[in-house]
């Protein structure tokens, strides 16, 4: 019977299966990058206006719905972009398998731990009791 599969003989004997989601990492990195261009400009411009400001003024800023939503989007896009980037660096430089696996897991835990902390602080500022 004729083999109609598109995979190369080398790919078959290696037995690793098809890549399937091979472009997912690349694509997510680019989409978050595109989102971060306007979001980071907005973030710097906003933060700049509050250099040296009192806590109350900063809290009032994030109590505004539009500002809280933009900041939330900035945090999510930045954390996702950062975890993808750090993952590539670990994969490039750490060759010992156990250490690589450990660092890849710690990278995800750390990045989303930071993200969750930022999200909680933001939630408190946006909907919490006025400080």
């Amino acid at each position: 019977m004729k083999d109609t599969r598109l995979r190369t003989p080398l790919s078959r004997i290696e037995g690793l299966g098809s890549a399937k989601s091979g472009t997912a990492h690349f694509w997510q990195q680019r989409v978050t990058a595109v989102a971060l261009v306007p979001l980071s400009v907005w973030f710097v411009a906003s933060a700049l206006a509050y250099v040296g400001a009192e806590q109350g003024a900063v809290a009032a800023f994030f109590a505004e719905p539009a500002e809280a939503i933009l900041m939330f989007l900035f945090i999510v896009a930045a954390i996702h972009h950062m975890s993808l980037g750090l993952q590539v660096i670990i994969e490039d430089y750490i060759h010992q398998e156990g250490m690589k696996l450990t660092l890849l897991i710690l990278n995800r835990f750390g990045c989303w731990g930071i993200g969750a902390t930022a999200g909680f602080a933001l939630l408190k500022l946006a909907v919490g009791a006025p400080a």
Partner: protein
Amino acid sequence: MDHNGHIPGPGTRALGKPKARPLSPHMQIWRWTITMAASITHRATGVALAGGMLFLVWWLIAAASGPDAYAVFARVADHPVGKVILFGLLWSLAFHLLNGVRHLAWDLGYGFNMPTSRLTAALVYVLSVLIAAGTFAIGLIVRGGLGL
């Protein structure tokens, strides 16, 4: 494996020493080019910005915790060391953002030839320093204007 511990492979004669094959030059051998520098700077500024996320999270936690916690953050941010860190983060962000746009243009097929790559790499370095310096100066003016 033979008695010398050599595993016969594509680069090895069956029972002899490994063939002396030419090796690709590595980091310490290549002459530095501005495109290489931009590439590694992109990675370094990315790592710096990941560290900067900790500073950003501290800012949010401090703002959410109240005036006392915020005063501690403000004191560190206003300290000369804090200012150096903030300037470094501003430059890192400016560089990573501009060079990121350069990467996105490449992904769309623009500016990938060598003369353009060299020119845009140089532009990214110059513009990122100017933007960081300008933004930092505005921050200092705002800080002086509002007082602390």
